[in-house]
């Protein structure tokens, strides 16, 4: 019952050859699948880097910060004292725009808001993963520059997300804060560059202010 149908009993019979393409497809397909999977998982598409929604008011940070040199804290007043940096109330805009460009069409929503008392519904850009409790003051007061997480906002016509804001990204900095520490007076200076090697400076500042970022769960999750 085991007599051979094929001339060469040591090779697979012809009819099995139809399987070869299948095998090939499986191999190639698998390879493609894995690479695509990895690409998607780690691409900005997944982490949302570059997310730049259209805002109700075409507010230009490049103009206000880059050119006019407004300090971040003029609008984001909570950044040093609270968890939320806080998007400014319409009032803040009107402080200047009551006089400047009073009639500009771009500012219609702002003026409406000021009149009706209804807020301007800004679109959130820097959206941390759910269940994360991030505190601006804790970072800014230690000399972590705005630029470290928000990028060169002073050059952005339309603000976009500059960093992945993923857990691994957070941990990376919590593990080696030296790379992002600067003298506290320069935290809002987006274009500031250290006079010396950042690692050296960072290490020194870390020593001075005894900065030991925690990595345990509840540092961010409650």
């Amino acid at each position, binding site marked *: *019952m*085991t007599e*051979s149908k*094929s001339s060469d*009993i*040591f090779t*697979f*019979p012809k*009819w*099995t050859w139809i*399987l070869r393409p299948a095998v090939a497809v499986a191999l190639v397909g698998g390879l493609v699948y894995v690479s695509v999977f990895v690409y998607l*998982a*780690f691409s900005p598409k*997944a*982490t949302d880097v570059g997310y730049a929604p259209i805002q109700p008011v075409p507010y230009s940070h490049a103009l206000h910060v880059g050119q006019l040199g407004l300090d971040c804290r003029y609008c984001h007043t909570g950044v040093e004292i609270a968890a939320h940096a806080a998007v400014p109330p319409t009032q803040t805009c009107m402080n200047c725009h009551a006089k400047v460009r009073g009639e500009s069409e771009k500012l219609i929503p702002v003026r409406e808001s000021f009149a009706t008392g209804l807020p301007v519904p800004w679109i959130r850009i820097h959206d941390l993963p759910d269940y994360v409790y991030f505190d601006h003051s804790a970072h800014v007061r230690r000399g972590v520059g705005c630029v470290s997480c928000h990028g060169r906002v002073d050059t952005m016509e339309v603000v976009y997300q500059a960093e*992945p804001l*993923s*857990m*691994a*990204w957070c*941990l990376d900095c919590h593990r080696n804060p030296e790379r992002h520490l600067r003298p506290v007076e320069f935290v809002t200076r987006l274009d500031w560059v250290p006079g010396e090697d950042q690692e050296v400076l960072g290490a020194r500042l870390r020593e001075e202010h005894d900065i030991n970022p925690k990595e345990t769960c509840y540092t961010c999750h409650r």
Partner: protein
Amino acid sequence: MSTSAPAAYPLDNTFDDPTRRAPLVVGDNDFHSITEKVCGIVEMPRTPPAWWIAFFISVSLTGVLFAMIGYLITTGVGVWGLQVPVAWGWAIVNFVFWVGIGHAGTLISAILFLLRQKWRTSINRFAEGMTIFAVVCAGIFPGIHIGRVWVAYWLFPIPNQMAMWPQFRSPLLWDVFAVGTYATVSLLFWYMGMIPDLATIRDRAKSKLRWFIYGVLSLGWRSSNRHWHRFEMAYLLLAALATPLVLSVHSVVSFDFAVSIIPGWHTTIFPPYFVAGAIFSGFAMVVTLVIPTRKFFHLEEIITARHLENMAKIMLATGMMVGLAYSTEFFIAWYSGNAYEAFTFLNRAFGPYAWAYWIMVTCNVLVPQLFWSKRLRTNIAVLWVASILINVGMWFERFVIVVTSLSRDFLPSSWGYYRPTLVDILTFVGSFGLFMTLFLLFVRFLPIVGMAEVKGVMPQAHLRDVAVQGHGDYHGDILTERGEVKA
């Protein structure tokens, strides 16, 4: 000695005459008849109605299983009777139960193979199949019992943007690897062993489709000497690889309990105790399934009474081990002088769950004692009922361990009483449906007896040896038509 033909081929090979070696295949069988008998099942022109009925029931139960799982996942673990303190219930009990069942196969095929127990050949395929299906059922439960099934993949070490790894100190993680490995190796072992027989079916195939399917499955087996040589070498290696796994899987499963601090769980006796129990329940399940099967497909001559008797003996032995474990637990509870430990065991035997405990003792310790009597252990009906009782008992053993220990631990204020819900029960019943479905497909479409191996232990395979010089492994006399023994 009778002269009438049928009587000339006595089916009973359970005699204890040390001068005669009992044949492993009885009746007037040669290689061809074996092939006919086994392949016959697969090649039946029409599937018997009984099979259809059984299959229909099993498939419906499987449907119930998946319905319950769907309900569970969409609603929450609360659909089960779980609570605090008893946060593990039937799901874990079933998991341990099925993993236990899944032990006989690999034990028979690997350990008995290494121990040169030739009688394994008639039942090993069958047992291996059962093992695979049991492990499939077992695998379902840890998966669905967690609160958030959709993130179950966190249990595997996959690189991720959270920079998080699983915690390797947790026995649950060890389970993931242990059961995973065991399932893989068992599957390989089972399939590899089947290749020659699949080839046989291929070669006997009448229809093109059949020929193609079995052809693909048999991976171009030609049964050339070289094939056989490599096959046997690989089989030996796999057996060697599988053997430690038989012991490791259930040891690791037992760590889920042994590593914790709960009185009744926290004990060093668990690994051997669990392994013994697993083999015990495994063989019980083999017997439960093999008895109706051999009857239905007329395989009495291949899966002989002696096979059943041997398994009964193993059940007796392992049953005693389990019994020893039970008593040891009580002794230690007293000897350790630990008040909590002591109470836990008194509570098992006389507390709110005493009924479960005594069911367990009756089925696992008392019932096997029947097998001391040759009359009883060779009585098919008794054997079958006993094996079922043992399965029941082994399920209750896991229930007792998991539930009673949790229901009353350290602080009386947190004591509780666990009751299963309908969903618990249906899920368990459903898992039997899945098991039987797979099993029925197996007996219908795959060779349930390792033909090649059986033939290997038939006297015909050794005529030459006999002629030359009776070497060490001589497998029973060939009964001639006159019932005399050829010399």
